[in-house]
């Protein structure tokens, strides 16, 4: 009797999880189709576009690149050199030394011949005390803000206060931005008044040849962890975010590389301090408050500006990162729960937000339950082998197909990986990613959910190997 009840519940649950996977994969397929259309249109519009002409234009908005740095003495000089080399006619680089305990500031002073200045600025958004401001004698467009430690969000707020650009570009100091990325990412702001933020593509730099802040030769990493993340990043940016451009707009722009309208960011109070998902929180705020006020609120993703980042190659560090990402996601969705199914927010409330709740937030819970229920059901005979095979096809096979489709999209468009060997490696990682790696991310995200309910708001130590040549300082 009890056995029958258990098998019935297991069978029912297994079918529910099966249905869930169909919905999730269906949504992702819709995103892929949307991304393909958006990519085609985007490429038509930017074909042989006169970006050199834009460099000489008198009407391009000024961009302030905000780069927070904390204990970055080894790489900071090279990062700043790379930022100064970005192609843009009106660029100001604001490096924020967030109370580093090492010699980050001394390296900057020595390398860029900084002198203290006293510009006039308003404390419009909350940040820790600014200890000093410096300008470079070599590069007058370089401003260094030395402040007390307050975290990344706080550093960005200090940068926002001191910046003078109409647009601000949030950049991680250890991110490598391609030289023409700003000329490309500014495009939505030149074509649509309603745009408040735009994000670019983040790619994995592990395994690539890097020198002087530039990726000289893009390679697919050989390590399992970095390889799986390469496929994950491709999927996430190339169709995850691009697809949303046509389906209601994005809710996430990577904190490593995003461009914002400064006035709009100031209006929503800048970055929020008490969350680990400050980048997503800012986007949610910009969209929500923009729609509340009836002002600009569109968030666009642009596929061709590229920033390269080093992803964790240690299980422990990756686990911490995913745990933090999921805590951030949970926190932001909780803060903006009023948006859910609220017709006032149109696509944001009726499509985007529900997707993030059902697929991104609850995904690991359902996936974990499915991973337990289906094998158990098979063992107890509650579900038959045909169902097991179908489940495998939907949960794993469809995912692999989507991965392969994204790689095909990449090959047909940007072809960053030029060698056949890299392409084969990428295909290998796309197959491997669904077995083991994906299940581990489920565990880490569940851990994040659990820790969020326990009120944990720490970032955890994020050690990396480092990219490229040593700083010239």
């Amino acid at each position, binding site marked *: 009797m009890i056995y029958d009840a258990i098998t019935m519940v297991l069978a029912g649950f297994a079918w529910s999880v099966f249905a869930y996977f169909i919905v999730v994969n269906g949504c992702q397929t819709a995103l892929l189709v949307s991304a393909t259309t958006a990519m085609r249109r985007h490429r*038509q*519009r930017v*074909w*042989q*576009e*006169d970006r*050199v*002409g834009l460099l*000489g*234009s*008198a*009407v391009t908005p000024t961009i302030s690149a905000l780069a927070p740095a904390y204990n970055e003495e080894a790489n900071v000089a090279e990062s700043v050199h790379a930022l100064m080399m970005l192609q843009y006619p009106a660029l100001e680089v604001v490096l924020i030394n967030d109370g580093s305990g090492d010699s980050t500031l001394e390296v900057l002073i020595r390398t860029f011949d900084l*002198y*203290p*200045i*006293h*510009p*006039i*600025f*308003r*404390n419009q958004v909350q940040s820790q*005390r*600014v*200890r*000093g*401001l*410096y300008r470079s*004698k070599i590069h007058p467009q370089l401003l260094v803000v*030395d402040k007390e430690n307050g975290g990344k969000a706080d550093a960005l707020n200090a940068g926002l206060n001191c910046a003078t650009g109409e647009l601000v570009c949030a950049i991680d100091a250890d991110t490598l931005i391609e030289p023409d990325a700003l000329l490309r990412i500014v495009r939505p702001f*030149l*074509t*649509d*008044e309603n745009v408040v933020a735009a994000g670019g593509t983040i790619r994995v730099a592990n395994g690539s040849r890097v020198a002087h802040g530039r990726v000289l030769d893009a390679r697919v990493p050989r390590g399992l962890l970095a390889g799986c993340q390469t496929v994950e990043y491709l999927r996430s940016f190339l169709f995850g975010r691009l697809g949303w451009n046509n389906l209601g707009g994005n809710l996430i722009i990577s904190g490593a590389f995003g461009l914002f309208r400064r006035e709009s960011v100031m209006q929503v109070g800048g970055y929020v301090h008490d969350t680990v998902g400050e980048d997503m929180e800012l986007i949610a705020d910009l969209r929500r408050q923009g729609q509340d006020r009836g002002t600009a609120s569109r968030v666009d993703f642009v596929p061709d500006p590229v920033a390269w980042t080093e992803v964790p190659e240690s299980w422990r560090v990756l686990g911490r990162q995913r745990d933090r990402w999921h805590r951030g996601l949970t926190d932001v969705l909780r803060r903006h729960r009023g948006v859910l199914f609220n017709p006032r927010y149109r696509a944001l409330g009726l499509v985007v937000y529900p997707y993030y709740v059902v697929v991104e937030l609850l995904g690991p819970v359902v996936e974990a339950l499915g991973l337990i229920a289906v094998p158990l059901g098979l063992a107890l005979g509650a579900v038959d082998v045909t169902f097991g095979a179908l489940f495998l096809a939907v949960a794993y096979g469809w995912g692999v197909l989507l991965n392969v489709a994204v790689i095909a999209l990449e090959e047909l468009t940007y072809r960053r990986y030029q060698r056949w060997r890299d392409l084969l490696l990428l295909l290998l990682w796309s197959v491997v990613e669904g077995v083991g790696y994906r299940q581990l991310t489920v565990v880490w995200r569940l851990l994040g959910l659990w820790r969020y309910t326990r009120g944990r708001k720490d970032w955890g130590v994020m050690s990396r190997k480092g990219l490229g040549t040593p700083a010239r300082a």
Partner: protein
Amino acid sequence: MRVSMHILARVLSGDPERPALPRLPLDKSIEAVADATRSIDDVGRARLAELPEYVELAERSARWCTSALWPRRLKGVRLLLILGTGQATVPRLLDDPRPEVRSSAAAWAANHPSPQVAARLVRMLSDGDLACRLTAQGALIRMGLHAVPAVISHLAEAAPASLASALLVASRVHNSALTGPALAHRHDSDPAVRAAVAQVIASGGGPDSIEWLEELLADPAALVRSTAAAGLGGLGHWPSSPLLADRLGDPAWEVRRAAGLALDRLGGPGQLYLQRALQSTDRFAQDMARQVLDRASPGQGAAGRVEAAVLAIDGQERK
């Protein structure tokens, strides 16, 4: 592709003995010619124009410009922009129904100025599409003197559309002939227009400009007052120092900042007024003067004074 680039380089260097270009797929051919033409002068362009491949591409682009499909028209105009030709085809595309095509045609127009094209670009300043408006602005500014008659005639209209944009162009062209037509709009109801008028006056210069800028210092809109203050500072007219010093106590932070920086730019007399403002009973004027005077020049140390000044401006907005 590499061979083609090498041959094109030989063409550009004037080498008389050059082999024919190998046959390339269309996209590669476009890429090779585009790369070769991006940064060459008229002589180099004339040499390239002798190549049959160049002529073929130019003809193909002109055909694309008449296509019913907008992506093809866009391709055509972009290619003609690169090739530096298309005088017979592209001006028509300034009226294309697709904004992408109009905008690219406007970018082409910057390199091919004519009175008709300039007049059309001025009309484009009120286009419904942002990209078209910005490209038209940029193109008119790049045209410089060629754009002046069209801008003047636009400003002389009874109720010109996109007045602020036209005035912005006028301010960047730096031509005193534009000051008169701009002044006609100094009482416009839109503060952005009045601020743009102030910019035109400041960019044009001349003795009368001072009087108008001083008048605009008393404008009800903060944007206009701050633009006028910055203009006076830029013109270096030190007798305006007392008026600028009055603005140090302005209710709007932007105006106080612009007045302070303008006084700083005026040199000795401005500095004197800033020193005097340090004794002012108006806390806002005092704070701004202190911040401007505390600003260190290269080699001086002022980092230690940042804290006090930053704290002083916290929450000091009067509005």
